[in-house]
C-alpha cells in the first residue's frame, strides 16, 4: 500500500425503510484532500459515522488502512483523527484536560503530552483559553478544540464532517490553512462540506453523493470537465498587471487545448480549455512561460458549482 487509505466496500445503511446509503464503493489512497459533496441527507455524515464506528453499516465494510473499522475499531482508528458533527466536550473540563484525556486514550507518552497539547492548541489559536472551562466557550471555540483533538496524535487519516461549521470567517480560513498544511505532511483528508469554494480551494479530488449513491469520484478538474458539454474546464487567473486584449485574443486563445479566453477585467482572465489535469498542467506552464504577471491560477468556483448542480439535478 502506497500510503494512508480509506475504502468503502458496498456500504449500505438502512433506517427502517429509508435507505441512507446504497452500495457505496469508494477507495481513496495516498496523501491528498478529498472533498465529499452532496445535498442535505445525501449520506455524507452517515458514511463518516460508519468510518468512525459511530453507526454500523447494514451491509458492506469500511476499511481504514486495510483494517475493518467495525471488526477492529481500536486498531483501525489508531491512525485516524476525526471531527464528526461538532462534538461537545464535558463543560466542566478545560481544553487542556479534555485533550489530556484524548492523548491518554491514544497513548501519547507522558513527556510528549504537554508539549503536543500546547502545540495543537496554538495551531487552532486557542492558547489563551487552554485552562478555561469549555462550558463557557462559543460553538466556534469548541469546534477549534475539536480540531485540536483530531490533530493531537498526528494521525495518517483525517475524517472531517463540515469542519468549518460554526466558525467565523477568520476561523474558517485558519482551518483551511491547517488542512492545506496536513496535505504537505503526507496525510489523507476526507472532508465533507457544503461549501464548494472551500472544497475547490483545498481539495485535490471530489466525491459527490446523492440519495446514498456515489455519483462521481475523480480529480477536481476531471469532475468539472465531465459535466461540461464539451468536456472542458474553466480556469480563473489573477494578474499582477493589466493585460491587453490583443495578447488575450492572439496569444492566449491560441494556446494548445484552449477553446476560448476572455478578460472580465484588466487583471483577470477566464480561460476555457479542453481535457483533464494533464492539459491543465500544460496550460499553467504555458502561461507561466508567457510571463504575463500571473499570481494565481485555479479552476473556476462556478465550474464546480455548475457540475454539482448538474449532477445533483440529474439524480432528482
Amino acid at each position, binding site marked *: 500500500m502506497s500510503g494512508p487509505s480509506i475504502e468503502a466496500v458496498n456500504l449500505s445503511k438502512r*433506517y427502517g425503510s429509508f435507505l441512507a446509503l446504497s452500495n457505496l464503493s469508494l477507495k481513496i489512497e495516498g496523501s491528498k484532500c478529498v472533498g465529499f459533496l452532496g445535498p442535505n441527507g445525501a449520506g455524507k455524515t452517515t458514511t463518516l*459515522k460508519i468510518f*468512525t*464506528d*459511530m*453507526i*454500523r453499516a447494514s451491509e458492506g465494510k469500511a476499511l481504514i*488502512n486495510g483494517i475493518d473499522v467495525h471488526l477492529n*475499531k*481500536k*486498531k*483501525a*482508528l*489508531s*491512525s*485516524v483523527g*476525526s471531527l*464528526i*458533527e*461538532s*462534538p*461537545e*466536550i*464535558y463543560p*466542566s*473540563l478545560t481544553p487542556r*484536560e*479534555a485533550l489530556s*484525556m*484524548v492523548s*491518554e*486514550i*491514544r*497513548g*501519547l*507518552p*507522558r513527556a510528549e503530552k504537554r508539549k503536543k497539547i500546547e502545540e495543537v492548541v496554538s495551531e487552532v489559536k486557542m492558547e489563551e483559553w487552554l485552562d478555561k*472551562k469549555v462550558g463557557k466557550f462559543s460553538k466556534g471555540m469548541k469546534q477549534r478544540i*475539536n480540531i485540536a*483533538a483530531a490533530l493531537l*496524535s*498526528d*494521525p*495518517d487519516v483525517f475524517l472531517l464532517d463540515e469542519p468549518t461549521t460554526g466558525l467565523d470567517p477568520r476561523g474558517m480560513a485558519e482551518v483551511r490553512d491547517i488542512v492545506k498544511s496536513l496535505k504537505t505532511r503526507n496525510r489523507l483528508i476526507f472532508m465533507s462540506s457544503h461549501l464548494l469554494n472551500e472544497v475547490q480551494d483545498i481539495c485535490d479530488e471530489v466525491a459527490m453523493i446523492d440519495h446514498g449513491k456515489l455519483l462521481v469520484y475523480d480529480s477536481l478538474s476531471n469532475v468539472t470537465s465531465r459535466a461540461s458539454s464539451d468536456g472542458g474546464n474553466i480556469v480563473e487567473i489573477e494578474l499582477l498587471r493589466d493585460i491587453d486584449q490583443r495578447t488575450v485574443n492572439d496569444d492566449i486563445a491560441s494556446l494548445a487545448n484552449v477553446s476560448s479566453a476572455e478578460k472580465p477585467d484588466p487583471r483577470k482572465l477566464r480561460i476555457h480549455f479542453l481535457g483533464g489535469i494533464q492539459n491543465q498542467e500544460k496550460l499553467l506552464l504555458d502561461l507561466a512561460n508567457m510571463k504575463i504577471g500571473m499570481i494565481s491560477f485555479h479552476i473556476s468556483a462556478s465550474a464546480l458549482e455548475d457540475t454539482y448542480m448538474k449532477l445533483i439535478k440529474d439524480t432528482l
Partner: protein
Amino acid sequence: MSKVSATIPSTTGGRLLPTSVSQVGTITKYELLNYFRSRRFFILLAIGLIISGLLTGLVADYGVSNVAPCQPISCSSPALAFYSFWWGNSITFVIVLSGIFFGGDAISGEFQNKTGYFLVANPLRRSSIYIGKWLGALIASAIVLATYAGITVGNGLYYFGANVPYQFAESLSFSILYLIAVLGFTFFFSSLFKSSSMSILVTAILFLFAFSLIQLIVSGLVQIEPWFIITYGSGIIGNVLMDTYPTTQPIRGAGPGGRAGTTYAATIPEGIAILLVYFFATAILGLILFERKEFT
C-alpha cells in the same frame, strides 16, 4: 496510564496504543474529574450531610434511648439499636440517590449532550467507556457513602464508645453490594434511552416508588415472595442490624375476619444472590445496549 499493549501497534509513528484496561482507567479518571467539577457530586454530598445533620440533631435533642429504644426483653445491644435506627433506616435512600445522580444519565447524556461524539470516535472499545464511566460513578458514590458511614460511626462512638457492633460491618458490606447493583441497574436504563431526563425520571420513579409499591402489592396482597425485586434483596442491609434477624413467617389477621398472610424477609444468602443477579444481568444488558446503540 502508561501501560501499553504489545499486541496492538498503531500505524501512526510506531506509537503503541494503551491497553483497554489502561483506557478504562483514563475514562474513570476524567469521569471523576467531571463529577468533582460539576454540582451534582456536591449536591449529593450536601444531601448526605443534611440527613446526617438532622439525625445528629434528633438524637442529641431527644436522647439516643428515646429515638433508638432498646427494650430489655427484645434488645441485647443499645449500640446495635442505634446503628439500626440510623444506618438501617436511611442508607438505602442515600444509595438510591447516588444511583440516580451518577448513573441516571451517565450513558444517555453522552447521546443527548453529544459528548459521546468526542469520545467514541477515538481508538477505544465502547466497553472501555462504559466500564470506565461505571467505575467513576461507583467511586463518586462510594465517597458519599463513606462520608455518611463516617458520620454514623462518629455519632456511635460518641454515644457508645468503641463498641461498634460487627453487624454494622456486615450492613456496610451489603450497602456497597447494593450500590454496585443499583449502579448496574441505572446504567442499564441509561443505555436504554437517548434522553437524559427520561432515563433519570424512569430510574427515580422505579427506585423511589415503583419497586416499593410492587413489593407491597406482591407480598401483601398476592402473597408471593418478591424475590425478583431489587429492593427486597436490599432488605438485608437493615435486617442484619436487627437484634433478631427477621424470617419469613405466617401472620394472623387482626380482628374477626382479618386476612391471614405471610411476612417475607430475604435471608442473607438470598439477598446477596438477588443483588448479584441484578448487577450482572443489568450490567451485561446495559453493555450490550451501549455497544449496539448508534450515534445517529
